[in-house]
């Protein structure tokens, strides 16, 4: 699938973002503290290694099973939700999704939207879109509320304001909400609670995400700790849930292992304060709840990942954030540097399908492939293998196999390809290899002291006086 109208996609300025982030000592301290905290919390929830590994395998199987029947399950989901009185909508692109939301807004002449928490709505840039159409869209999750006040994007998929410390939030509330400066977290949360209370019942529409959409029973399952999700999906007369097409699971009982994995991996909790299962709008005899419930199913590149057996595993994700919590790169550069809705390891493998590889060309390389992410992923996404695969796609020659991935070949360089071909020639020709080794070691005195990026942080590498090949031959004889 070629990119529309051959408009070159401006790549995310990742390296510039990285330099800025690394220079920000406060940011680095905030992230180091936060990631250490979250890693410890998760570890404490999985004291039994055997239980943990078997549960991860189980989670992987549940997700793979759902993906292996995805079109059928999506249709079953639509049927069961419709039977329950939920209106189901499908959107291939974020533009289509926003248009659907807009039509619901218009039908209700809505002016005020309140959001629970939804990363898919961030993909849609829904707040911005609604703002352009004269509808204010207020975040009610404390972390999202904070970043919205700062006119920033979330920097973590679970804890949106993780890049800030209490002092920064105190200043923010003091400036924007006209309250006395206080770093007392209890007091700050109370201020948030009081500010948002009235907003819940002034809202015309509540928007939420979905953690799991259950095909068997026609149920949307949401998890949260604060209660704003329940508020947003209960108080306003209309509830719009937005989610990705990969979020469907087959059976009600499938959520049991996934819930356990999600809460224990994300925030190190046995369970969240609320598990909220919605199976329809307010019934005739009920006294609260929305009168209309909508579900918008968004593709936005997921079908591209789905089309490839290996890359399909990207869609196992249950959005726990454990990968970014354990990532040494994310810990140092923070979430914003990625320039994407989803940061960290999952962001690097998912976003290329949403935005194309031209735009995200640097992301698959922003990893040492240490594997910490793959080790903790509750649904066993082989993240390092997928990063490697995306690198392969990014350097594909233009005349190589049919292009299945948007932006394939974005990092193709004839020069680089030639260098690797020469490397291959050297390593497949024993005589040439030994010659290069001999030359390198004998000429090691000529090693320049500045060899670009390596010598920014290292002394020049010291070639040995003689190669192992030579020393081994001397010691063992020829083979």
């Amino acid at each position, binding site marked *: 699938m070629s990119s529309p109208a051959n408009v070159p996609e401006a790549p995310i300025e990742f390296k510039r973002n990285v330099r800025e982030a690394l220079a920000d000592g406060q940011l680095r301290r905030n992230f180091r503290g*936060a990631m250490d905290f*979250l890693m410890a919390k998760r570890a404490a929830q999985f004291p039994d290694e055997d*239980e943990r590994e*078997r*549960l991860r395998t*189980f989670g992987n*199987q549940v997700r793979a*099973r759902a993906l*292996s029947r*995805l*079109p059928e399950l*999506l249709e079953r989901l639509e049927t069961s939700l419709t039977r329950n009185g939920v209106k189901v909508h*499908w959107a*291939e692109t974020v533009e289509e999704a926003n248009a659907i939301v807009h039509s619901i807004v218009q039908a209700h002449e809505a002016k005020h939207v309140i959001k629970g928490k939804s990363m898919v709505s961030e993909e849609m840039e829904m707040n911005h879109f609604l703002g352009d159409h004269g509808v204010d869209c207020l975040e009610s999750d*404390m*972390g999202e509320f904070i970043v919205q006040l700062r006119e920033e994007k979330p920097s973590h998929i679970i*804890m949106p304001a993780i890049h*800030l410390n*209490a002092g920064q939030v105190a200043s923010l509330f003091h400036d924007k909400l006209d309250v006395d400066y206080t770093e007392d*977290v209890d007091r700050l*949360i*109370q201020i948030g*609670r009081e500010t948002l*209370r*009235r907003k*819940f*019942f002034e809202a015309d529409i509540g928007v939420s995400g979905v953690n799991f959409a259950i095909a*068997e*029973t026609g*149920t949307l399952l949401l998890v949260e*700790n*604060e*209660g*704003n999700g*329940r*508020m947003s999906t*209960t*108080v306003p007369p209309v509830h719009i849930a937005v989610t990705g*097409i990969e979020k469907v699971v087959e059976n*009600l*009982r499938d959520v049991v*292992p996934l*819930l*356990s994995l999600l809460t224990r991996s994300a925030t190190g909790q*046995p*369970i969240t*304060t*609320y*598990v909220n*299962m919605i*199976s329809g*709008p307010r019934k005739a005899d*009920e*006294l*609260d*709840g929305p009168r209309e419930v909508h579900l918008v199913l968004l593709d936005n590149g997921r*079908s591209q990942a*789905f*089309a*490839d057996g290996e890359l399909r595993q990207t869609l196992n994700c249950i959005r726990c954030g454990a990968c970014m919590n354990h990532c040494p790169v994310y810990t140092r550069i923070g979430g914003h540097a990625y320039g994407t809705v989803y940061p960290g390891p999952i962001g690097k493998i998912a976003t290329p399908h949403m935005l194309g590889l031209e735009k995200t060309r640097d992301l698959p390389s922003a990893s040492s492939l240490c594997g910490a992410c793959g080790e903790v992923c509750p649904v066993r996404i082989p993240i390092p293998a997928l990063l490697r695969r995306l690198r392969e796609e990014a350097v594909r020659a233009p005349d190589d196999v049919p292009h299945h991935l948007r932006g394939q070949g974005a990092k193709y360089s004839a020069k680089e390809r030639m260098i690797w071909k020469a490397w291959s020639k050297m390593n497949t020709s024993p005589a040439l290899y030994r010659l290069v080794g001999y030359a390198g070691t004998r000429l090691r005195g000529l090693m320049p002291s500045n060899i670009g990026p390596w010598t920014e942080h290292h002394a020049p590498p010291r070639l040995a006086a003689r190669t192992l090949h030579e020393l081994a031959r001397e010691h063992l004889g020829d083979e």
Partner: protein
Amino acid sequence: MTAKERILAKLRASLDGSTPVADDYDEALLTTPWAYAADKRVDRLREVLEAVHGETRLTTAADWPALVVEALSERGIDELLISPATAHGQQLAAYLALSGETLKLKAYDRPVEEWKETLFFHTPASLTGTLGGIAATGSLIVWPTAQEPRLMSLVPPLHIALLKVSEVFDNLHEAMHRQRWVNGLPTNALLISGPSKTADIQQTLAYGAHGPKELLVLILQNA
């Protein structure tokens, strides 16, 4: 083609010729590590719930109304939102009538649109029943009904819940299975595992974000 048709066509083409992954559901993994001796089950529930600032009191089917009066008066609360259509609502009303306590009972008996302001700003506490509890995660099973609507357990800053010991299950799998949830989920089904909280500011825990700041669970031992 509609968006739905286009999306499904893409997905189907991608699966062409493949077979679905088998359902190899490992029930033992969800139950064995989370099973408790009968005399330890309630202890476990209390331990997990109290670790997240839930409050629990052991009592009986006869004594809980007195505890409610005590808990409210300790907090200087003089009115309680409760459903007169439920057995526990009637039991409390009868207790108050007999004991002459001055606690005022309010009912959530009309659509929320008619009294939102009062519900949100002048309702300090509510009392609801539960469908049971889950020991492994310190959770209450709350299925709102026409008598005990959704916002009852969400809006008032204090939520008091009645839990019967006989309805405490070891783990979520057991609860779901024994109560046959799959046969019919209500409009809204909830697991409530403590008062509202957040750690969004510098990972520091604070309670009472948007939901109740306090959750008091009265555990009825002979029920």
